[in-house]
């Protein structure tokens, strides 16, 4: 029996999944951490430092007028990097606008990732080539896309998992519910990854949900839910990798909630002082995802001068390249406005394009 012969729904024959653990799963700082491969620890460390540097550079570019806006993921780097590392090349990732680090870590050109936020087009990378959906602005609306894509891949007999990213605020949207329900019924190879960073712009968690955790919601859909410390890169990496493996092997979807914290304001245009105390932010700095990795590396004798300088040089090179290339004015062709609305422009769009062409010619002539 091939996958095509199987029914697309998932009859409820298995016992209901268990409730997730009450406490977020942790690895760093526990005895289990000693079993981690040194190579994984140093890779996570290097990528998190690089990610934080990317956030800092992108925020600086907003101040220089090179980006219209930037939603920083500082404090959430462990989630971002682990999401990308949990996937294989054939897998797809469905990011929200704050997930730029995951997209960069996936291998997309850092400049192309910022196209939306620079404002020269709505998406700057080739989604089909890199298997990354465009950054989604309407929250949670990309989750059903992930389910559909994963379902389609399964129908074709392809080995593809989709990782769908959403925040705590996005879980309140109807699309979150519908996506999880479809995924569970179809047993689609999808991992839903909720980064619970404590705030939907200004609205705190307590005003977003009365559930014991977002991971608990999984049980109602008939899928496993996992609660993980989102600042513990090793833990997030392990949990996501396991969820992806399970999806790949036909075990259906998983909902993973990573508890983390948005250290910066919502975007450069936001004023977090209006809705939270600095003391709260400072308390979270004690659980800084990079510092947690550093502690483990130090304890293992892996944190030395050469690692630090290698990682910092790499991050600075990336930042300098980003700065240089973002300081170039993007090439704009206003006629592109009509080029991709339809496969073939309608007669009405052809007329409007001619009008704009004439305006541009007149501008150039005057």
């Amino acid at each position, binding site marked *: 029996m091939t996958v095509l*012969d199987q029914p697309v729904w998932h009859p409820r024959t298995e016992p209901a999944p268990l409730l997730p653990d009450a406490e977020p799963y942790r690895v760093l700082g526990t005895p289990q951490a000693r079993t981690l491969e040194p190579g994984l620890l140093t890779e996570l460390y290097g990528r998190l430092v690089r990610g934080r540097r990317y956030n800092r550079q992108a925020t600086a570019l907003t101040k220089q007028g090179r980006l219209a806006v930037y939603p920083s993921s500082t404090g959430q780097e462990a989630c971002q990097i682990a999401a990308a590392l949990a996937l294989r090349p054939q897998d797809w990732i469905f990011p929200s606008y704050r997930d730029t680090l995951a997209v960069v870590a996936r291998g997309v050109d850092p400049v192309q990732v910022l196209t939306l936020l620079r404002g020269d087009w*709505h998406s700057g990378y080739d989604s089909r080539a890199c298997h990354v959906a465009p950054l989604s602005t309407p929250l949670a609306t990309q989750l059903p896309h992930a389910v559909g894509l994963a*379902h389609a891949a399964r129908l074709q007999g392809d080995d593809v998992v989709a990782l769908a990213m959403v925040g705590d605020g996005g879980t309140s949207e109807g699309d979150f519910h519908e996506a999880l329900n479809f995924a569970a019924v179809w047993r689609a190879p999808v991992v839903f990854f909720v980064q619970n960073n404590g705030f939907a712009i200004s609205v705190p968690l307590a005003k977003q949900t009365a559930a014991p955790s977002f991971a608990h919601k999984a049980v109602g859909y008939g899928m496993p839910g996992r609660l993980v410390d989102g600042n513990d890169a090793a833990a997030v990496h392990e949990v996501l990798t396991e969820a992806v493996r399970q999806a790949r092997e036909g075990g259906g979807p998983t909902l993973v909630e990573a508890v983390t914290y948005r250290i910066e304001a919502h975007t450069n245009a936001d004023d977090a002082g209006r809705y939270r105390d600095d003391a709260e932010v400072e308390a979270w700095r004690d659980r800084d995802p990079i510092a947690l990795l550093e502690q483990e590396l130090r304890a293992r004798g892996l944190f030395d001068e050469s690692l630090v300088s290698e990682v910092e040089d790499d991050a600075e090179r990336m930042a300098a390249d980003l700065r240089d290339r973002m300081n170039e004015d993007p090439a704009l062709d206003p006629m592109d406005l009509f080029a991709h609305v339809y496969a073939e422009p309608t007669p009405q769009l052809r007329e409007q394009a001619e009008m704009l062409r004439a305006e541009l010619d007149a501008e150039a002539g005057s």
Partner: protein
Amino acid sequence: MTTALATARATARKPATMAQALNRALRDALADDPSVHLLGEDIGTLGGVFRITDGLAKEFGDSRCTDTPLAEAGILGTAVGMAMYGLRPVVEMQFDAFAYPAFEQLVSHVSRMRNRTRGELPLPLTIRVPYGGGIGGVEHHSDSSEAYYLHTPGLHVVTPATVADAYGLLRAAIASDDPVIFLEPKRLYWSKADWSPDAPDEVPGIGQAVVRRPGRSATLITYGPSVPVCLEAAEAAEADGWDLEVLDLRSLMPFDDETLTASVRRTGRAVVVHESAGFGGAGAEIAARVTERCFHHLEAPVLRVTGFDIPYPPPMLERHHLPSVDRILDAVARLQWDEGGA
């Protein structure tokens, strides 16, 4: 040979309903292209509440004709993902007013994905929506929602009025590499015409209007469920000495300005007829386009006969709302015949 073939085809024609033609179009699309997948509520075992997908799940399997959970945004949202992976989904919205939960997916993603990605991620999606009134439906079963879709750049909006067009346009919609809103006039589902499923009439692609009845006095511009009403009105108008042309738009986007303009320039008078509310409706756009292009040929202002600007009425009152032959003829009578001369 050609003559013999034509004769064989002609003899094969027999009465068929629009519902049968739509069913055949879906069946042929499924058979011709393995990337075509149908999604919707009750479209599998039941064959759809209007039986448009009757027998398809049995013939092609549940994975090609899938009963989904009851969630329209989820249906359209997952169809987007399937199209991103290269499939060609055809989704059924059970009724016009049940399509509204899917509106965000439609506006925020379906209509924009190709443009957003500079053509890298086209969405070859067909969204079938049974629409319109006149079937005695209770609330939420009789809306005409075309204006919402028309105001969303990136979508094609198509609606058949005949059995042959139902087949031809649905095949064209499914073959299109752009998202198509395929509005099915549900009160015409059971309308009949002589038609051969094995030799379906050639129907031009999406975007071409057709003159259903040539005439010299005035043009009735219409589409979907109002086409038969306009044809009836044109017949009745003969008694009053008016020779009315009836133009079936078939495609509201892309819009066939050329055929429309040629007709109105010839007749010099026009009435736009549709069921949906007039204010901000398709008729407003059509009247504006006709005026812009035919002003010096017009003998009278372009008039509209539409549904009232009210929520769709309860079934026992809907006949007062829907454009009727009398209301169309009243509008024709107001086309300044005395001043301009017929």
